[in-house]
């Protein structure tokens, strides 16, 4: 289902219609901004990114501010709010009107750290003006090691950024080369150190494993180095070959040979075990935190059906109930539609109860907390446990889950986490 698109007038007519006027529960919403620029595009990346000079960035920021303002007006429920280019809003009462506060701002991409400091300032100003932001909010910036300079670090802190996520990917120069990264291992190490010294609440490192040609030992070495630097948080992602990426094409032509399934499994288990021993707790398939408070507050929203509003090309949003929508993927399209006075929404989906349950199950099985039976019954009226007595027994027998009877949860073991997608498929969610 796509959002209705009227003919281009200056009216914003295409806010997604939501199903009710209140947000369920007290799940606080977050804000996401997609910055589609990188100095170079990595061969494995399937995000909406491009290389873009300062002019392009400047134009992008203008459109972004426009989008932010339009949504801000909508959220505040104001009848008419004019943005820079005279966009009016039309009142319809979406769930957002009851929103109190946003407690998370996340700048992702792309390489958000490639935005100039002025640009960043403009963006944050627009966000603060348009939305009520909680005082204790998390503000995350994704950054590449090459953008980590003393000046930038200080400026980022000043702008209110309190969580820095560094795209290190590896401490092995060969792997870095294959992954098309601009920095060396040494660059990465000094960047992490500098970031840690700059008093962010959380410094996180992103790493990629199961890279062709990477031995188990060299990966463990990277992990050791990562852990040795003592970041608050580490994300470890298995290299995934996505369609329409250079790696995909290379694979089709036989020039890129993926690591085999068994080895991928080995890497996964080795990673989890190593990090667990090093004191990093896996709270999700790919995310490890030293302390509970280091966990990604923003990402958690994706996993518990909290609402979030996304800006920029390809950004996704969710109303916390059952409506999802996402923006046009290409920068030009996104900007053009905004120019025409409409929200750059590419498509919307209206989820049924069944679909929401399916998502809940799939998302929670990826997390250490697992599935909350009572929560599901409360929210959806589905008695998941009684629908799956045999299946759960079998999963326990196979060592894939632990049923925490006391807390009424279904918790995946490490082996279960590794096959979380299949587990989700084997649970019955309807009584039909």
């Amino acid at each position, binding site marked *: 289902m796509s959002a209705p698109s009227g003919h281009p007038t200056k009216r914003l007519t295409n806010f997604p219609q939501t199903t009710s006027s209140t947000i369920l529960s007290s799940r606080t919403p977050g804000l996401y901004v997609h910055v589609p620029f990188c100095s170079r595009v990595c061969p494995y990346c399937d995000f909406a990114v491009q290389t873009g000079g300062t002019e392009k960035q400047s134009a992008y920021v203008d459109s972004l501010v426009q989008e932010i303002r339009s949504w801000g007006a909508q959220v505040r429920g104001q009848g008419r709010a004019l943005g820079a280019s005279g966009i009016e809003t039309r009142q319809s009462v979406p769930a957002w009107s009851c929103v109190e506060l946003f407690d998370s701002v996340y700048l992702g991409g792309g390489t958000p750290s490639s935005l100039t400091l002025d640009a960043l300032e403009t963006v944050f100003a627009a966000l603060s003006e348009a939305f009520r932001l909680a005082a204790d909010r998390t503000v995350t910036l994704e950054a590449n090691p090459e953008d980590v300079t003393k000046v930038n670090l200080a400026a980022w802190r000043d702008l209110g950024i309190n969580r820095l996520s560094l795209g290190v990917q590896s401490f092995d120069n060969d792997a870095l080369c294959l992954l098309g990264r601009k920095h060396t291992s040494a660059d990465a190490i000094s960047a992490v150190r500098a970031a840690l010294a700059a008093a962010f609440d959380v410094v996180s490192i992103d790493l990629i494993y199961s890279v062709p040609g990477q031995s188990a030992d060299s990966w463990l070495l990277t992990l050791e180095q990562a852990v040795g630097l003592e970041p608050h948080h580490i994300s470890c992602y298995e290299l995934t070959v996505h369609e329409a990426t250079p790696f995909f094409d290379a694979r089709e032509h036989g020039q890129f040979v993926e690591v085999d*399934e*068994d080895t991928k499994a080995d890497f996964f288990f080795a990673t989890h075990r190593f990090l667990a021993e090093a004191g990093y707790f896996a709270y999700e398939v790919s995310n490890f935190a030293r302390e509970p408070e280091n966990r990604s507050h923003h990402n958690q929203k994706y996993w518990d059906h909290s609402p979030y509003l996304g800006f920029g090309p390809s950004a996704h949003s969710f109303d916390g109930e059952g409506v999802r929508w996402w923006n046009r993927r290409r920068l030009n399209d996104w900007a053009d539609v905004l120019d025409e006075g409409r929200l750059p929404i590419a498509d919307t989906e209206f989820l049924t109860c069944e679909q929401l349950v399916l998502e809940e199950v799939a998302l929670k099985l*990826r997390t250490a907390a697992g599935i909350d039976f009572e929560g599901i019954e409360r929210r959806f009226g589905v008695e998941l446990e009684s629908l799956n007595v045999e299946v759960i027994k079998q999963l326990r027998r196979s060592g894939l889950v632990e049923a925490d009877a006391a807390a009424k949860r279904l918790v995946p073991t490490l082996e279960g986490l590794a*096959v979380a997608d299949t587990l989700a498929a084997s649970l019955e969610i309807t009584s039909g």
Partner: protein
Amino acid sequence: MNKIRNFCVIAHIDHGKSTLADRLIQLCGGVSDREFQDQLLDTMDLERERGITIKSNTITLAYEAEDGETYTFNLIDTPGHVDFAHEVRRSLMSCEGALLLVDATQGVEAQTLANVYLALEQELEILPVINKIDMEAADVDRVLEEIDEELGLDPFEAIPVSAKVGEGIEELLEAIVKKLPAPKVDLEAPLKALVFDAEYNAYRGVVLFVRVVDGSISPGQTIRLMHNGAEYEVEEVGLLQLQQVKQKQLGSGSVGYVIAGIRTIDDIDIGDTITDATNPTTDPFAGYVEAKPVVFSSIFPVSNDDYEDLSRALDKLKLNDAALTFQKDASSALGFGFRCGFLGMLHLDVVQERLSREFDLSLLLTAPSVEFRVTTADRQTHIIENPSEYPDPAMIELAEEPYIKGSILMPDRYVGTVMELLREKRGADIKFNYLAAGRIDMTADLPLAEVLFDFYDRLKTITQGYGSFDYELLDYRPTDLAKVDIMVNGEKVDALAMLVHRDKSRARALHACKQLERTIPKQNFKIAIQGAIGRDIIARRTISAHRKDVTAKCYGGDVTRKRKLLEKQKEGKKRARAFGNVEVPQEAFLAVLRADPDES
């Protein structure tokens, strides 16, 4: 004196029967130039497309001969494929003569021989016709030699023609007048007519195609079908011209149609005798033996919802295809369907295509099988074609399978490879005859089961297209039969069980296991796939457990994608059947049931 000529055109496939028939029709003015359409008598799209004739079609033509008289030609166009020999025979019984068509570029082929024998059986006057003389590769002299030596016919009688360009046709027409005998006519004798074909028409009911031998038929007359004594009043009779043309009467010696209020094809017997109810003949034709199906396959609709549609479609097809047999079948893997009997692989192919095309059905077919004959210790004999009917092996005294006599005609340079093929297919009593012009006629006794699937195609491949094949059923011979069960983690999958010759059992079992290995997705535990005879495991493959499937990232945009994938997986599960704890998707069944069992 008698100006009727009843004849058919018989030949090997593709030697040009239909084109010749078109020419005869055209020259006899049966159709105006405007109406003329190539391959006129091949009325079905499928037939036209494949260049084959499936149904037998008859047409009555009027020929103005050189002697000034007008003759009535009743031309019966017959199917050429070995599967449809029974239709050829029925047509022959209505004729006095036969045009034996031989392609000048191909010469005498397996089915030419077969058809000659059929015609001689019926004591027809055979007129050899050499076709396609316009082609560069035509070698008329060689063909004349073959006609003489291989067919034992008089080469001087042979008429060279080119149906395509229209050469020699007039000579042929004259030869039909002069050389083929007229039918014996006796209008006074009690009615005796042969039903050589029938068709079901939604508006007119059953239309009988008859050859009136004695007496006559007219509207209002009460006729009796002698196979069951049922009586009907004749509504209409007529000639089979390009359209059915009403007549006042069909008299002795003629060929035409009869409509008599008969509701369904089941009420009639092809080969039956029609006589007058009040003055019946005392000399009916010997009852015609129904062609027996020899190849069996089960047909399932891809979607269970289409079952009713499939049932109706088969009923409709059967109206005009008496040889098609079917009965309800069920498989725990594939749901409800029908076990069908066919006259051969071509028949199976044609039926499947018609179901798919004319009725728009998506279907699954199981690999074809034959009927085995099994005698148990209590001296009972069972006919088995479904592995589930196989009795306890300990009780079996004797198992037999149907054999055929296959005959292959080919250039002698392929002898070696063809011999190998025959041996591979358990051929016995292999004999060969050197024929004219470097050709060999090879015969062998072969189990029908070995010939079913792809024998003809492989023969064509290894002889580079030059080999031709014909067969006839022989008898049942003892065989060493085994029932192979396929198991998945110890659970039997009944739909995949097979009855095979013991020598082939290991290869077939391994093949099935490999297909399953390829198509069953990994699950969270190891999966053992086994083929077994009784308790002996004869083949085995293992699918290792998958240890990791979870995707790396699950943020904003990933959730929708992940959910959609899950929805698809759940859909797939609905189409999978659980055997023990293993889920076997529909694709896996198809892979085993449809793959060529002799290709590893």
